[in-house]
């Protein structure tokens, strides 16, 4: 059975069908792309999967569990993490604290224990130690004590991915990770995504407008237009698909 299975997913905002009857199946270990023109409903699908929106119709199953109607923090507990189109870091917290939040799920101290303990606790030390090691994987350890908002753009993107991975997900959703990056940064990002997939044995679903990145990186691509899946397949096929070309370039181009 597929790790993430979406069946007949539909989301209506009033009279507008943002996502309409979408089916998707993502196997464990796959690296799948989700593309489509602006307003095609890509981010809406992410929001439906992560519980930000509730589906109007349809089923979302992850790892054998039904996700419909769960709150975002409950979805995270099932092993899904994401990044955002417009970076959403905890801006006024140090870089290392951003990553430490990821260990939130594993922290054992109860609220009462936290209030009466002595200021330095072993669990906190362990979390700090782990978070530092984690940052060094992403070459951000030298920034550990700086505020997240003071990082340059590329490092903020990297930190957001690091933060998502700190929650130890099985499935990572990346929403336009290369937005605003120059070609060299995009190339670095491509290597990073490949590397984290192998390192953390992840399944990745990513939304991206940078076609060179998507074509190089993804093994399979879903194309969305006006909330409907218009094509699905490996990059080479997608590139030649007349429907896709039409959606991107208009009818005359076909």
């Amino acid at each position, binding site marked *: 059975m597929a790790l993430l299975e979406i069946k007949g997913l539909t989301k209506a905002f009033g009279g507008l069908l943002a996502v309409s009857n979408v089916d998707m199946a993502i196997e464990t270990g796959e690296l799948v792309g989700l593309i489509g023109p602006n307003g095609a409903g890509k981010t809406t699908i992410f929001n439906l999967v992560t519980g930000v929106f509730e589906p109007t119709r349809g089923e979302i199953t992850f790892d054998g569990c039904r996700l419909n109607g769960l709150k975002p923090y409950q979805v995270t507990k099932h092993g899904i993490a994401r990044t955002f189109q417009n970076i*959403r870091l905890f801006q006024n917290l140090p870089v290392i604290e951003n990553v430490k939040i990821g260990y939130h799920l594993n922290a054992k101290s109860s609220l009462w224990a936290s*209030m009466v303990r002595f200021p330095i606790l072993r669990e906190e030390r362990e979390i700090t130690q782990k978070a530092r090691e984690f940052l060094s994987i992403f070459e951000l350890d030298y920034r550990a004590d700086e505020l997240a908002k003071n990082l340059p753009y590329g490092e903020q993107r990297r930190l957001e991915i690091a933060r998502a991975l700190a929650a130890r997900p099985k499935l990572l959703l990346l929403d336009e990770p290369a937005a605003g990056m120059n070609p060299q940064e995009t190339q670095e990002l491509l290597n990073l995504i490949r590397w984290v997939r192998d390192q953390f044995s992840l399944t990745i679903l990513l939304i991206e407008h940078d076609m060179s990145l998507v074509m190089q990186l993804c093994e399979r691509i879903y194309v969305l237009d006006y909330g409907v899946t218009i094509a699905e397949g490996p990059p080479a096929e997608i590139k030649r698909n007349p429907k896709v070309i039409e959606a991107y370039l208009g009818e005359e181009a076909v």
Partner: protein
Amino acid sequence: MATQFGWKKIRDYLSLIVTALFLLGLAYINVISGLGLIDRYYNGILILVMVNVILAVSLNLINGITGQFSIGHAGFMAVGAYVSALLSIHLRWPFAAVLVAGMAAAAVMGVVVGIPTLRLKGDYLAIATLGFGEIIRVVIVNLDITGGPRGLPGIPPKTGFFVAEALAALTILVISNLINSAHGRAMLAVREDEVAAETMGVNATRYKVTAFVVGAAFAGLAGGLYAHYMMFIDPKSFSFFKSVEVLVMVVLGGLGSVTGSILSAAVLTYLPEMLRQFAMLRMVIYSMLLIVMMLVRPQGLLGTWEVSQAFRDLWRRRETGEAGRRDVHGIA
């Protein structure tokens, strides 16, 4: 870069010296107070400082750490004050028991108010909590058992300086521990970005209510201490202006800084007394100071800085000697 490194070091040592002086001052006050040499006027101010420290530190947990703009703190204080005072007067419970009961009552109020209002954000939450504070006051005015607008006299005088001091210290300890735990980090995450916090597995609603309830409980404690020092309470003592007073302390000290809340609670309690010699101009000077302060340092006296950071930085420098190198990358 060398100058920046130097400045940070100076600042850290300076804060150590200030802390040491502060603790010395506190020790001196404790000694003369213990020997009974302190006069009643100053004794009273010191107790009110402690009460305000508890109020400011607990409101900071809600406003500064969790980022939920509440201006109904006097309401929770009133609940604690009246519940503990009535239990003292009518049932003659021991002091410790009435304080705990006052805290519990305020905490229950925190749950009742928190669950429906915390789905509101920003200005809307502020108005809802303001409304709550007024409702509490109006209820007290209209009840018989509370003495209505005439107030409630005959509360046994039980709050001494040492009790108030110990409970203020306890409040600071408990709330700092909470802030520095995984739970506190979750609260900070909610303040920074609720949506992102939720996708990191933080149940935002739960943490907002938790902060609200813990903050309310300590406001109730402050109320109990206040009632048993003043021996008389009336609804006017817990009006909207009391909430604003506490809010000013938190904002002036720096939203999110416990050290700042303590400092500004102490200063803003003592300042109006110190300005008494200017008689009519007293509140004018007080307001001017606040205006100037907000113009010059909108982030508050200490921003989000804590005195413990100075200790930590100095310790790390001693231990590793590499802080200088790290500062090259450092911005603040």
